[in-house]
C-alpha cells in the first residue's frame, strides 16, 4: 500500500514537471521588436522621432552630444573659433588636427557612425512605411515622414562628404572617392562612391523630399522636425557647395519664407531658445533630455559651470571681432571674461545684455536659421555675376537687422563676395560652417595673428589649401570591417 502510494506520488511529481510551452519566449521591455514598431505609420513616426533625438543625445563621452558636437568641431577646425586653454582637454585634439587624422580615434569613429546611424534608420523607414497597415489612410503623414527620412539621408551624406572626402571641385569631374552610399537597410559594407555620385544621390533625395513635403498637408510638431523649408535650406547649402548658384539663390529665398529676422535688440537672446522666428531647424530640449556636462552649452556657455567655465572658453578671432562695428549687436555677445578677451556668450540666451549667463542646462539647439539663407542668397547672386545690386540688397536685409548703422554695400565683384563672406563669418560663428567654407573655397587654414595661443594648436597653425589634413581619415573600425572602403591619404 505504502509502496504504491510512494510510487504514485513520485511518478506523478516527476511527470508533472514539464514547463508551459511559452516558458522560453521572452521579450525585452526597453526595446521593441521590428514587427511591432514598423507595421504602423505611427510606429514609423516613432522611429523618426528617434532620429530627431539622436541629433541631441548623449553618446558615452562628454564630447559627443549629436549634431552640435560636429558643428563645434567644424568651427574649431577653422580659425575663427578657438579655446582659451586646454582645460579638461575636450575638443583639443580636434582643434589640433589630431583627432580626425588618427584612425584609432573614438571621436573620429563616432562622427562617422553618428551620421550613418541616421542613414540606417532613415533607410528602415523608407523601406517599411509604405507597407504599414494604415499607410493608405495617412497619405499626408506618410509623405511627411518619408520626406524627413530622405532629407536626413541627404543631410548625413552631405556632412560626411565634406568631412571624409576631398573637396568638391566646382567645374571638375569629381571622380575622386566620396563615401559609401546606402539607400536601403543592409549589413553588407559598400565601397566609396565618387564625390559626384554622392552629390547626385543627395540631390535626388532632396528633390524627392521637397516634392513630398509640397504634396503633404501634415505639419511638424516643432522645429525638431524637418519641413519643406529645411529641405530647401539644405538644398541651398548643397547648391552653394557645388557651385549651382542659381539653385542656391532660389532655394535660399524659398527656404527663409516665413522665418523673419528678429529685431536687432533681440539678437543676443536668440540662440538657445527655439521660440525665435529665425529658427528653421533645431532641437527642442526638455529638462529630462538635456545632457549636462555632455552638452554644447557645457562647452560654450562661459558662465554656467560647464567645461567652458572651467577653462575652455570659446574665443572669436581678432579678425572677425574687429571687422564688426561697435554698433553691431553681434559684437556685443563677445566679452572679456576671467581676464580673457572676446569670449563668446552668443549662446547664453542673454547675449551681451547682462553680466551673467542664465543658470539652466536646458536650452535648445540651433541647426539652421534664416539669416544663413540671406547669406547664401547674397553670395550666390554675387557669384552668378551681373546682379551685384540684388546681392547688396540681400546682404543689407540681413546685416541692417543686426547693425542699425549698417550702410548698404556699394562693392561689386570679388570685393562684394569678400564682404559677404566676412559677414558670413560674423553671423555664423559657432554654428558649424567655417571648416566647410574653407574647403568649399579651397582656402588656406592660417591661424597666425588671430589671437590664438600658438602652442595650443600643436602643428596645426597653417595648412595650405588642398592639404591632406583637410580630409578626415576613415575610422579604423570601418576599414577593418569593410574591406571595400579605401583609406584617404594618410
Amino acid at each position, binding site marked *: 500500500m505504502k509502496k504504491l502510494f510512494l510510487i504514485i506520488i513520485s511518478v506523478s511529481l516527476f511527470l508533472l*514537471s514539464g514547463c508551459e510551452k511559452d516558458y522560453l519566449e521572452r521579450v525585452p521591455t526597453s526595446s521593441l521588436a521590428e514587427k511591432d514598431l514598423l507595421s504602423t505609420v505611427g510606429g514609423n513616426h516613432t522611429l523618426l522621432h528617434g532620429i530627431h533625438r539622436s541629433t541631441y543625445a548623449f553618446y558615452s563621452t562628454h564630447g559627443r552630444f549629436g549634431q552640435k558636437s560636429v558643428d563645434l568641431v567644424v568651427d574649431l577646425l577653422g580659425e575663427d573659433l578657438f579655446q582659451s586653454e586646454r582645460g579638461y582637454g575636450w575638443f583639443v585634439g580636434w582643434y589640433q588636427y589630431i583627432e580626425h587624422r588618427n584612425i584609432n580615434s573614438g571621436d573620429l569613429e563616432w562622427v562617422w557612425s553618428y551620421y*550613418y546611424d541616421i542613414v540606417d534608420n532613415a*533607410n528602415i523607414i523608407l523601406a517599411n512605411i509604405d507597407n504599414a497597415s494604415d499607410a493608405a489612410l495617412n497619405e499626408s503623414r506618410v509623405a511627411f515622414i518619408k520626406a524627413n527620412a530622405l532629407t536626413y539621408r541627404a543631410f548625413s551624406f552631405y556632412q560626411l562628404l565634406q568631412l571624409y572626402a576631398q573637396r568638391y571641385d566646382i567645374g571638375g569631374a569629381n571622380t575622386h572617392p566620396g563615401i559609401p552610399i546606402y539607400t536601403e537597410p543592409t*549589413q553588407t559594407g559598400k565601397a566609396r562612391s565618387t564625390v559626384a555620385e554622392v552629390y547626385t544621390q543627395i540631390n535626388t533625395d532632396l528633390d524627392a523630399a521637397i516634392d513630398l513635403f509640397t504634396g503633404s498637408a501634415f505639419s511638424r510638431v516643432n522645429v525638431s522636425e524637418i519641413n519643406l523649408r529645411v529641405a530647401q535650406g539644405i538644398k541651398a547649402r548643397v547648391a552653394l557647395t557645388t557651385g549651382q548658384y542659381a539653385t542656391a539663390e532660389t532655394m535660399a529665398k524659398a527656404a527663409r519664407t516665413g522665418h523673419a529676422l528678429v529685431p536687432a535688440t533681440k539678437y543676443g537672446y536668440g540662440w538657445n531658445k527655439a521660440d525665435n522666428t529665425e529658427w528653421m531647424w533645431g532641437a527642442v530640449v526638455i529638462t529630462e533630455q538635456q545632457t549636462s556636462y555632455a552638452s554644447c552649452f557645457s562647452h560654450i556657455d562661459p558662465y554656467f559651470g560647464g567645461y567652458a567655465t572651467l577653462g575652455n572658453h570659446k574665443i572669436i578671432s581678432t579678425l572677425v571681432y574687429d571687422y564688426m562695428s561697435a554698433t553691431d549687436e553681434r559684437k556685443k555677445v563677445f566679452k572679456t571674461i576671467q581676464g580673457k578677451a572676446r569670449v563668446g556668450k552668443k549662446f547664453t540666451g542673454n547675449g551681451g545684455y547682462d553680466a551673467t549667463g542664465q543658470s539652466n542646462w536646458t536650452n535648445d539647439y540651433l541647426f539652421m536659421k534664416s539669416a544663413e539663407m540671406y547669406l547664401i542668397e547674397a553670395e550666390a547672386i554675387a557669384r552668378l555675376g551681373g546682379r551685384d545690386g540684388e546681392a547688396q540688397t540681400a546682404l543689407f536685409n540681413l546685416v541692417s537687422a543686426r547693425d542699425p548703422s549698417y550702410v548698404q554695400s556699394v562693392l561689386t565683384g570679388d570685393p562684394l563676395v569678400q564682404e559677404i563672406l566676412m559677414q558670413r563669418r560674423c553671423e555664423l560663428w559657432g554654428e558649424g560652417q567655417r571648416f566647410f567654407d574653407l574647403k568649399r573655397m579651397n582656402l588656406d587654414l592660417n591661424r597666425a595673428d588671430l589671437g590664438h595661443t600658438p602652442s595650443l594648436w600643436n602643428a596645426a597653425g597653417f595648412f595650405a589649401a588642398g592639404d591632406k589634413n583637410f580630409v578626415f581619415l576613415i575610422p579604423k573600425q570601418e576599414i577593418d570591417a569593410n574591406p571595400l572602403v579605401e583609406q584617404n591619404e594618410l
Partner: protein
Amino acid sequence: MKKILILLTLLLITGSFVMAQTVQISGTVTAQEDGSPIPGANVTVKGATIGTITGPDGRYQISVPASATTLVYSFIGMVEQELQIGGRTTIDVALETDVVSVDEVVVIAYGTSTRASYTGSADVVKADQIAKIQTASAAKALEGVAAGVQVTGGIGQPGSSANIRIRGIGSVNASSSPLYVVDGAPFDGNLNSINTNDIESISVLKDATSAALYGARGANGVIIITTKKGVPGRSNINFKATIGAVSRAIPEYDRVGVKDYYELMWEGWRNALVIASGQTPENAAANASGNTANGIVNKLGNYNSYDVTNDQLIGLDGKLNPNAQLLYYDDWNENLAQTGLRQDYNLSLSGGTDRSRYFASVAYLNEEGMVKWSEYNRLTGRVGAETQVKNWLKMDATLSGASSKQNGFLAEGTYTTNPFYYGRMMGPIYPIWQRDASGEIVVDGNGDPMFDLGGGQSIYKWANHTRPYAANSNLILTLPRDERSTALNSFSARIGAEISFLKDFKLRVSGNTDMSNYFLTTYQNHLFADAEAVKGRSTKEYRKVISYTFNEILTWSRSFGSHKASLMAGHENYLYTWSNITATRTGFTIPTTELVAASVAEGSNSYSDEYSIEGYLFRGDYNYSDKYYISGSFRTDGSSRFYGDVRWGNFWSLGGSWRIAQESFMQNMSWIDDLKIKASFGEQGNDDINNYYGWQSLFSISGRNNGNFNGALHSQLENRNLKWEKNSNLNVGVEFSLVKRITGMVEYFIRNSSNLLFSVPLPQSTGISSNWQNIGTMGNNGVELTLGVDILKANNLLWNLEINATTYKNKITKMPLGTDGKPQEIISGTKKLSEGHSIYDFWLREWAGVDPDDGSTLFYKDIKDAEGNVTGRETTKDQNAASYYYVGTSIPDLYGGVTNTLSYKGFEISALVTYSLGGKMYDSNWASLMHTGAFGSHWSSDILDRWQQPGDITKVPRLQNNYTAGTAASSRYLTDASYMSLRNVTLSYSFPVSISSALDMSALSVFVSGDNLGLLSKRKGMDPQQSFAGTADFTYVPSRIISFGVNVTF
C-alpha cells in the same frame, strides 16, 4: 503554478505510516589509533536508508529492522567497516585511520561522490582554508588554493568581489566566468551575500564529467559552494571575532618631486614653443621662464609653491632658482588615505541527532577602506537544517539573508571623483588648501581652512588660480559630502525533499530562489564641484533581481556482487528576472540625498528583463569491484536567449577511471597507497552573452523620446540562427598517494570552444556596428599539477607543503571567412583576434625606441613592395604610419599557489604564496604618468631619463607639451606581469583541552592573520592582477589586512 502544487503535495505527504518491527542496537565508535571516541561517525543499516550518527562520546543507538543483517560504520578519513549484527545489541567498533583520505566527499553536480570513485576533475577547498582569507567574497578565497583557477580584479574596495577563470578562457564575447552553485542550485545573488564563515566547502569542477550536467551553463567550469549543516552529536556554539587594520597593499608608483616637476614642465613647454610654435630656443626659454600668460607658472594655473616670484622660479637654463624655498607641499594620497578598521563577528550554533542536523549563524562584518569614505558593512543570517522525517522521506532547507551597504566612490576610469585617478595624477605642486604668502593655510572667518577647488565658482575658488588638471574639484572637500552607496538586501532559499521508494529509487524535488534588492544612491553635493551648477544632483535606483530554480531528480542505485550501478534522470527549469527603476533630480538647497528635497526632475526610467532555461538531464554510473569506474551524462537545454527552432542544445559527458592500486598485482608495492588513472570527455554549452534577446531584431526605446514624443532607434540586428556556443572538454589525469605522505594529481586538459558567440563587427556605415553570430573556434590546452607533501611528521611537529601549478595555451583555431575569402581578423582595443593567436595576444604598434637625434618616439613600419608584400621594416616617427604587430600575450606561462603549514602542538602557522610567471600587462597607469608634458598631470620618476639633447641614448622620448606621438599606444607600455604575492599568513594557537575545559569551553584558539603582505612585481605601483586581458585601470588598489582574532567553541 505547477511548481507550487508540487511543493504543496510534498508537504501533504509527510503523514505517518506504520513502522515495521525493530531492534535496538547501541555501541561506541572509537579510533583504532588512540582509542579516542569518534563523534559524528555514520552508522547505517546496509541496504536500507536507515542510519544514525555517533554522539560527542562516540556512542550511538540505532533502531534497525529485524530483517537487517549488517551495519556499516564510516567516518571521513577512516576506513569504512561492515559488521554482521548477528543478534548482538551492543556493537563497539574501532575504525582505522585512512592515511590518505581518498574517500573525501566531493560535492558534484546534483549529488556527491567520493574522491576514490570520482572519474572527473574537481578540487575541494575546505572551510578552514576559506576562513583564513579575510574577504566578503568567496571568490577571493580561491586564489592560489585550487589548481587551474585564475583570480583577478581582487580590488581593495571593501565589499568587492573578484573574477575567476578556470582552465583558460572559454569564450570571446560570451561570458568566460564559471557557474556558481550554492547548495544544489545555480546562484544568482551577489557572492558577497554569502558569509565565507558559513561555507563548509567549495568544489571547483573543471572537466566535462563534473560540469556537463549543468550543460547549458557549465562550459566555463562550476564552483559549488556548500554551506554548513552541522555535525550530528556535537551541539556547539561557536563565536569568532576578528579585528584588524586595513591599509594599502601596493604602494603608489614612484613619482617626481616638486622641484623636478617645475623643471620638467618648463622643459616640455620650452620644447613645445620651439618645435610646435617655431620660436627660437632663446625666445622659448624666455617665454617659459617669464611671468606672462606664456610662462610656465601661468600655464600650470599660476601655482607657485616657492617663495620667489613667478618669473624668478625657473631660470633660462631650466633649473629651479637655487635660492627658492619651498613654501608648501600637500600629499593628496596621504590625505585621502586612512588605516581602516575591520571587524568581523560570527556566532553560530550547530548540532544534530541521528536523524536531523542543523546550523544557524549570524554575523556582522564592518570594513573601512584604506581610502577615507569607503566602507562596507554586512549583516548575515543563515539557517540550514536537514531531517529524516520518515524512513522514506528526508527534507532539507537552507534559508539565508544578508543586508549590506557599501559606501564608496567610482574607483574606475578617469572620473575626477575617482581618488585613485585623482591622487595619482594630480601634479605635486597643487595644494589641498589655499596658501598665503608664507605658505600657511588660509582660514575663513570661522578659522576653518580654505580649500582650493582649482577653479569653478564657489567660495573655494582661489583667486587667480586655475588648476589645469581637474579644475573645480577637491576630493578632500567633496567626497565626504557626496554619496555613492549600494545597499543590498538579499534572501536565498533552498528547500528540498527526498522520497525513497521501492528498494533502490529516490526522488528529490527542490525549489530554490535567490532574491536581491539593491538600492543605490549617487549624490553630488549642491555646494561644490560637479553638481554645483545644478545645485546638487541625486540619483536613486532600485533594482530587483529574482531567480527561481526548480528541479526534480529521480535516481536508482543498486549493488549486486561486485557491481555497483546508478542511474539518474531529472528535469530542471530556471527563471531569472531583473527589474529596475531609477530617478534623478537636481536643485537642492539643503544637504540631503533625498529626491523629495530637489526641485528639478532630470529624468526617470524603468525597465525589466527576463531569461529562462529548461533542461532534462540524465546520468549513469557503474563500478566494478571498486576498481573500474565509468560514468556518463546527458543534458538537453532550451534557452530563451535563442530563437525557437534552434534554442535546444545537447550536452553530454563520458568518463572512466581505473584504481590501479586496488589490483592484486599492486598489493606488494607497499609504497603506493593509491594510484588512479582517469579520463573524461564531453560537451557543454554557453549562452551567456550579456544580452537576453541576442537573436531578435530590436529598436531601443530607452532614452529615445524626442521631447514629449515617443522615439525609437534601431539597436540590434536579427539572427534567428544564433545558437549555443559549444565547449568540448577532455581531461586525462593520474592521482596518487605514496609512502603515506605524498599525495598528488597531474591532469592534462583540452578545451575547445566552437560556434563561438561572437559580437562580429559590421561596417559602421551600415548602421549597426556589430551582430551576434556563431563563428570561430578557440581552444585551451594545459597541464595542472597538485602536490601535497608532509615534509616533517614527527614529535607533534607537522610540516605540510601544498603546491599547485597550472600552465595553459590559448589559441584561436578558426575564424569565419571574410568577403575576400580569407579568415577574418577582428581588432578590438589592444587585441586582434585571428587564427593561430590567443584571445589575449596584444596587437599594437611596436615601439622602436627613441631617436637619439631629436628625442622622437620611433615605431616600426612595414616596407611593402608594389604588390603589397612586406619586404622588411623601418622606423617611423608618425604613429599613424606605424604598422601593428603581435607583441606578446597577457596569458601567463605558469600560475598557482604554494601553501606551507607548520604545526606544533597547539601552534599552527600557514603561509600562502600565489604566483604567476610570464605574460604581459599593458600598464596604462604608468603610461598616464609618462606623458610628454600635460599641464597639471603628475609624472613617473622614470621621466627623469627623458631625451634632452642630440646624442642622448634613452628609452624615454623628449618632453614636449602636446606631443601626441610621444604618448601613442604601443608596446612601450607592455610590462612583464609576473608576480609573487604573499597572499596570506595565519598564525594560530589552540589552547590545550585542559585550559579550554577549565573555562567550560570545548575549544579555544587565538590567531593573527595577514592578507596581501607583500608583492614582487616588475614595477613598483603596478597591480599585475587587474584583469585577464592584461589591461589596467585606475582601480581601487588591493588592501592589506592584518587582524587579530579569537575563536571560542562552547
